[in-house]
């Protein structure tokens, strides 16, 4: 009986699976002609509402102008999830245009033996990225920006679409005015400002400590202005050559100043605030300042359209002139895949994107500082808050630092990780953390 029953079941299962197969192949046959003869261009990007909408708008116009193409625009979660998708798609030759999270980070130099080679460089070296040097649309961009963020071995491989400031603090203009406070120009003015706010019972600063990386942003200001006496590049070279160190006076000063801010002026429980909610604390007046990148200005504005806010560089030193410029990076940077299914389409799309009219749509929505000249962003925030401090725009430590392989966690991901400082972290003083960092740096030296 059991044998019979199982035979019937088995036969049933087989028939079912066979019919299932038949069904699916039928539907494939029907679907193929419906797609028509359009050539698909596959674009990979991360989720960021304001930017996604602008790109979708550009895609629509592109398809109208070139009806022979169809744009397949895929977005994933940001940061690590995106990096994972990037790697999978580029190595499977399943993408035509892909975004990167910043302009080209520095690649190893002759003074960095055994350093980590960034992904983009390995992709170019293995022939996965298209050479854009001869393309006319590259000329639409500022030559200096292309040189800094899109060029490798004298060839252009990437299009940096805009710059962002990372080292600033958003501030609530109303709170500042009501209390007779002004934008601080030096470190001691900054401390006075914070004390004045505290004395009136106002929380000075909110930051998304739970995500940890936002703590890096104010540190970028401190690093750029303090390390190497304001010459960060020199300090980084020095640390490789053994001339400077993670526990030298300047590096300790960076950690110490951040510790002062964390211990005294951050909102209680900032290590529990995540990146998505931090702007709402600021926008609803729960804190007078927000440590965040300039790209988040649209989010702040959306959280409270009535709010009057500004943005100023964190003054890291007592030298007002030195403090008066932003530290940042190039944001969304496009690459075209050399071996993707539709390289010709990728170049066509990049050309269309780079037309000043379309580029303006993009850069306005993104809130970036344009990398094309003569673009009218019509943004008060960019014109009045960012532009005055763009004179000596410098790249952040995160972009300039060339890390050692297998570096310890206190220096990993090109940061100095002030979350490890007490009270949240385990190290009581800046010097303690600095000593650990130097030890880890030396331990990671190539043998």
């Amino acid at each position, binding site marked *: 009986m059991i044998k019979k029953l199982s035979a019937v079941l088995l036969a049933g299962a087989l028939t079912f699976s066979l019919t299932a197969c038949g069904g699916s192949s039928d539907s494939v046959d029907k679907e193929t002609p419906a797609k028509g003869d359009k050539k698909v261009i596959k674009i990979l990007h991360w989720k960021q509402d304001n930017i996604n909408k602008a790109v979708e708008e550009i895609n629509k116009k592109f398809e109208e102008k070139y009806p022979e193409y169809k744009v397949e625009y895929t977005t994933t979660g940001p940061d*690590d999830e995106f*990096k*994972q998708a990037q*790697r999978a798609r580029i*190595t*499977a*030759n399943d993408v035509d245009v892909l975004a990167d999270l910043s302009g080209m980070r520095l690649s190893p130099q002759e003074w960095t033996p055994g350093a*980590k*080679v960034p*992904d983009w460089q*390995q*992709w170019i070296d*293995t022939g*996965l990225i298209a050479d854009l040097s001869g393309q006319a649309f590259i000329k639409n961009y500022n030559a200096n920006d292309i040189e800094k963020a899109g060029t490798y071995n004298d060839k252009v491989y990437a299009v940096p679409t805009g710059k962002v400031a990372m080292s600033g603090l958003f501030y609530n203009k109303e709170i500042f005015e009501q209390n007779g406070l002004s934008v601080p120009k030096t470190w001691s003015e900054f401390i006075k400002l914070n004390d004045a706010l505290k004395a009136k019972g106002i929380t000075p600063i909110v930051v998304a*400590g*739970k995500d*940890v990386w936002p703590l890096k942003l104010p540190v970028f200001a401190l690093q750029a202005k303090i390390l190497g006496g304001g010459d960060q590049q020199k300090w980084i070279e020095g640390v490789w050559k053994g001339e400077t160190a993670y526990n030298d006076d300047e590096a300790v000063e960076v950690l110490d100043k951040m510790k002062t801010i964390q211990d005294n002026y951050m909102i209680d*429980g900032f*290590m*529990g*605030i995540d990146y998505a909610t931090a702007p709402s604390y600021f926008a609803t007046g729960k804190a007078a300042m927000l440590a965040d990148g300039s790209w988040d200005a649209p989010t702040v504005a959306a959280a409270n359209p009535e709010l009057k806010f500004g943005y100023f560089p964190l003054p890291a030193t007592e030298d007002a002139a030195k403090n008066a410029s932003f530290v940042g990076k190039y944001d969304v940077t496009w690459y075209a895949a050399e071996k993707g299914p539709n390289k010709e389409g990728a170049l066509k799309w990049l050309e269309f994107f780079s037309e000043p009219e379309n580029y303006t749509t993009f850069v306005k929505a993104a809130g970036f500082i344009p990398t094309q000249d003569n673009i009218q962003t019509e943004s008060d925030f960019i014109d009045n808050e960012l532009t005055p401090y763009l004179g000596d725009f410098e790249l952040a430590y995160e972009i300039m630092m060339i890390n*050692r*392989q*297998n*570096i*310890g*966690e206190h220096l*990993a991901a090109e940061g100095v990780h002030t*979350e*490890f400082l007490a009270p*949240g*972290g*385990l190290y009581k003083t800046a010097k303690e953390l600095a000593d650990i960092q130097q030890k*880890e*740096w030396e*331990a*990671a*030296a190539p043998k």
Partner: protein
Amino acid sequence: MYPFGKGFNRFIPLLLLLIPMALYIVFYFGPSILTVIYSFTDVKNLPGSTYQFVGLDNYKDLFFSGNSGERWRSIINTLIFMFVVTIVQNGVALFIAVIINQRLKGDYFYRAVFFLPVVLGVAVVALIWGMMFDPLNGPVNRLYDVLFGYQDMFFGSFTHAFGYIIFVQIWMYMGYSMLIFLAGLQSVPKDLYEAGHIDGTSKWQSFRHITFPLIAPSFTVNMLLSIIGAMSTFDIILATTDGRFNTRTMAYDVYKETFRGSLEMGLPSALSVIQFLIILLFVVVAVRQTRKREVEY
């Protein structure tokens, strides 16, 4: 006499078995062996790139380089995680299973409630506990404040985050262990208890000498599942702290190195091999110990 027929027919079952066998080799066994081989090479996640055998370099990198302290901590964390989860989860599960097995009123309801977290899935569980443990507005911190006048950072605390993750893991899978114990408990013949009762056993004695030996097979299964499960957990860590605040385990490191680290595949392969060896060691010891206790009356 000839269940599979004669002549060629005899080989049909073997031929049919080849299909799942081939699938198993291609998708499971093959990649596992490749992982071991890759752990001795400098293979990269780049198409067409060549690779060379580098001997034990990847293993040396794991334990004798700048970040080897973190590797050791991951191993220690993994062991703590495994011991605490296995002991507490099975202890609580057995306790609750015994209570539910007393033919309580509404036992189906309790069973469903305790099993519910298993069905929810990691993302939902992480979201729920993320809100419960919100240090600024969460209910648990209010409770702490009222009861002990104390506030915690929960998943943002270097000293406590790992403990909270262990708690969430146990909360999530306790119902699963409970169900297995319950199945074991229900298969114990009632007459044994009656016989024991006539001989004058106390409640503890009948649990110790009748129930426990007879549910030993469920115990073995639960032990194995929780050891393997706990040692290969990375999802709940990823969803709650993302490995920050000293909450990394070996499984999390494997995930991170493979998908988010550099393009190197040799190092994560070596890490996987070590993780496999540690799990194997504990599973073998656990099976030997628990099998000894299994009896049949």
